[in-house]
């Protein structure tokens, strides 16, 4: 490794912390805590300088969206405004205990309520819970709502339908909520096959999980037929909000007759992803599902905002407190800053950028679905694969040119998939550089395939052995 582990900076007796002197009498821990008293704690013994230098050095081994384009399809890595970071650190907004009385946090509750209103307007949903702490958590919350809905109706439906192009979280979520997963294949145009859907749907169907545009970036034109087919058997239709940034201001899930959905605040509203979190996955529902939302639910009373705990039909709780408040602050700040027409412009430019990239790359790389697409699109590296160079190699080679790689091998319905989503915050110059790099790599594959197969060449580590990692897990020092 390029930078040794923090423990390897240890020297016995070295410290980095500072605390005031204890100002009360010391008690006899041995006699009082006896059998509970810890004997050894093998944590690092380092100095503050060690800590600062070590994690500074580690950061330099990382690539964030401030480092350059991050075209991970379906992950939506857009610029994270610094003003939102500053805002979320204002002590009056951040130094709050979750169990402070509502009277003491009216400013924050107003912000959260404002966020709820905007999310409802953007999605055409009626009620919102902010409790889920990530997108997948929002999915889970949604499916538990579906479950609770049928429970309240004394129906015991067992199946959830998921298209084959769905994110892995969809089937996993359905399973966690206790459902069987029925996968349906897409049609040749990359959309839900209506016939297959009709066949799959029956009175045992609890819900269909769908994102629109789907993971191919293709809008389900027959969406109203789809929701109708599902509704006809009394089942619900759930919208995976991962791709909201493709339609905001142009269409609303509620108008497409979805019954409930989750949002990904980082994907749509620019909150940082932090190298894997925190996220925030609010869930929006139509009125008839509102009783089942987790508790407490934020409400506006006559003269104050409050948390409503009196929710007997609620699925109860999915989070210890109210969800990832700090993330919500940032999303709120984003919506306030950008505004209604700005959100629409954002959508337009996300779609424009994706279509521009597609237009410039579709000749060199195979485009498995010719259908019009929105904010992202999927290429296939199958032509390159014929030269013995797989999509993984192309991705690794991109790293050599200081650019992050697209999502690869997803969606599963495309072989050697290269799933690209530039987002609206990239400009044409960055996109052109990305295109030129991909075209260059494609030329390299023709002229010197080994060069690409052995990529990356310039990174601090190169093609780590994942098989070894899984076979002989080394998970701690």
């Amino acid at each position: 490794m390029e930078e040794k582990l923090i423990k390897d900076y240890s020297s016995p007796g070295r410290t980095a912390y500072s605390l005031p002197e204890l100002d009360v009498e010391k008690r006899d821990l041995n006699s009082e805590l006896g059998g509970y008293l810890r004997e050894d704690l093998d944590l690092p013994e380092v100095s503050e300088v060690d800590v600062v230098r070590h994690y500074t050095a580690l950061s330099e081994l990382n690539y964030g969206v401030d480092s350059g384009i991050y075209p991970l399809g379906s992950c939506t890595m857009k610029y994270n405004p610094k003003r939102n970071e500053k805002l979320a650190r204002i002590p009056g907004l951040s130094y709050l205990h979750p169990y402070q009385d509502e009277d003491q946090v009216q400013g924050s509750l107003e912000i959260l309520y404002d966020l709820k209103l905007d999310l409802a307007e953007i999605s055409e949903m009626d009620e919102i819970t902010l409790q889920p702490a990530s997108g997948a958590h929002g999915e889970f919350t949604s499916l538990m709502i579906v479950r609770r809905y049928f429970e309240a109706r004394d129906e015991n439906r067992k199946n959830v339908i998921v298209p084959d192009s769905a994110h892995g979280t969809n089937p996993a979520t359905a399973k966690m909520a206790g459902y069987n997963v029925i996968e349906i294949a897409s049609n040749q145009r990359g959309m839900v096959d209506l016939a297959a859907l009709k066949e799959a749907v029956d009175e045992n169907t609890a819900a269909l999980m769908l994102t629109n545009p789907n993971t191919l970036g293709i809008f389900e034109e027959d969406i109203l037929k789809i929701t109708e087919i599902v509704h006809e058997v009394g089942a619900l239709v759930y919208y995976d909000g991962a791709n909201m940034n493709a339609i905001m201001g142009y269409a609303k899930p509620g108008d497409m007759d979805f019954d409930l959905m989750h949002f990904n605040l980082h994907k749509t509203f620019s909150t940082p992803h932090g190298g894997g979190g925190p996220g925030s996955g609010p869930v929006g529902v139509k009125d008839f599902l509102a009783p089942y939302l987790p508790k407490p639910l934020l409400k506006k009373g006559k003269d104050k905002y409050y948390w409503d705990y009196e929710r007997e039909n609620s699925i109860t709780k999915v989070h210890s407190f109210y969800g990832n408040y700090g993330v919500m602050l940032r999303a709120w700040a984003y919506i306030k800053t950008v505004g209604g027409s700005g959100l629409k412009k954002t959508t337009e430019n996300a779609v424009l950028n994706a279509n521009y990239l597609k237009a410039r790359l579709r000749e060199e790389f195979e485009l498995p679905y010719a259908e019009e697409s929105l904010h992202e699109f999927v290429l296939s590296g199958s032509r390159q694969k014929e030269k013995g160079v797989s999509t993984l190699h192309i991705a690794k080679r991109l790293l050599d040119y200081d650019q992050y790689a697209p999502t690869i091998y997803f969606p599963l319905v495309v072989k050697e998939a290269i799933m690209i989503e530039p987002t609206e915050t990239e400009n044409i110059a960055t996109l052109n550089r990305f295109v030129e790099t991909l075209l260059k790599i494609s030329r390299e594959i023709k002229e010197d395939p080994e060069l690409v197969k052995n990529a990356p060449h310039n990174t601090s580590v190169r093609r780590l052995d994942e098989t070894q990692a899984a076979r002989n897990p080394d998970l701690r020092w």
Partner: protein
Amino acid sequence: MDYISNTAAEQDEMLKEIGVKAVEELFAMIPEEISLDCELDVEAGISEMELMDLAKEAAAKNKSLEEMTSFLGAGAYDHYVPSIIDHLISRSEFYTAYTPYQAELSQGTLEAMYEYQSMIAELTGMGIANASMLDGGSAAAEAVTMASRISRKKKVILTETIHPAYKEVIKCYGKGHQLEFLELKSNSEIMDPAVIKENIDQETGVLVVQYPNFFGSLEKMEEIAKIKKEHKKLIFVVIANPVLLGLLKAPAEFGADIVVGEGQGLGNGLNYGGPYLGFMACKDERIMLRQLPGRIVGKTTDVDGKEGFVLTMQTREQHIRREKATSNICTNEALNALMATIYLATMGKKGLAEVAEQSYHKAHYLAEKIDQLADFEVSNKENFFHEFLVKSSKDIKEIKAKLLEEDIIAGYDLDKAGKKGLLVCVTEKISKADMDNFVEKLEVL
């Protein structure tokens, strides 16, 4: 303002390349019936200056702990957060990165997560740990479903002394897995081990205990450990406070199979309840590892034989295994885990113990003082660590309200948890003067 980088001229150039005349054409596939015909009813955008003014206005409507002395705990703890943490996590290479899919450009996050796993494992005494969960409650819930998968039994014993919110989350998650819960009642602030013992039967797959428990008390862990020993197939889940593990014996020593908890106290601010992080550790056994939910980072070597880090054991995860995954978890709390990592490195061997120790001494100082007051009694004085239960002949709500006028948050009103009393928490941040003032104000109520 917006975050669109392209100018109008560039947009035109791009439209030309695409072969359409106007950007609206790119949305032509959206059926007319569902195509929005008006602007979103969301207020117009504002400038940074206006945004900051708006935020400060909101902050002014709050009353933050900066202006008060708080004895609130109950699952979210106001420990001191060293300033280097925010400095370091504010490096954009960390916080603007995605989940480390391309390991070569993500060694920073990955190595830090490996360190996190190592230190959580050390702290809990367990063999391995994952790279973080969403929060304490959901980590507890996932631990219970994991334990049930391992024990292959659906019956779960919960103790009454677990954090009430955690119990709700556990039960919510349990529903999807068709778990049955048996919640054991208690007559005091700790569980009677005999009650636990007599309620375990052949069907029982999981036992959950909190350490210290919701009331700040230490359960009779050694006796519970004995019970666990007698039931080899029972999976023993301990919900622990990681900060206090700086002084308290690791749950592993009491036979825990899975240890989870809220990691907020480890260098994360209060933030009105989130983002926090759940931690999860378990025994280093293949069956455990295979059932462990969430991201896991492993050390391996690259083509040049150089050591490095990758996401590993991904075949347990949703993006590979789909409905057969151990959890749907995708995004976790990586940045919060990084904060915990830097915290543990900074406090280190000696500092974490001192935080726990100071919290202990101070809490006991305060408890004794309160216990001496005429109308107050500390009911768990025998066995608490840094949080204790105060009973009073006076009305708790009134006490709280009166003290608020003095800028003191007296604690957590147990009314919300269906009990009577005030749960008072003391950390190393509270000074003797703060406590003396608190007692004085209680006295003259």
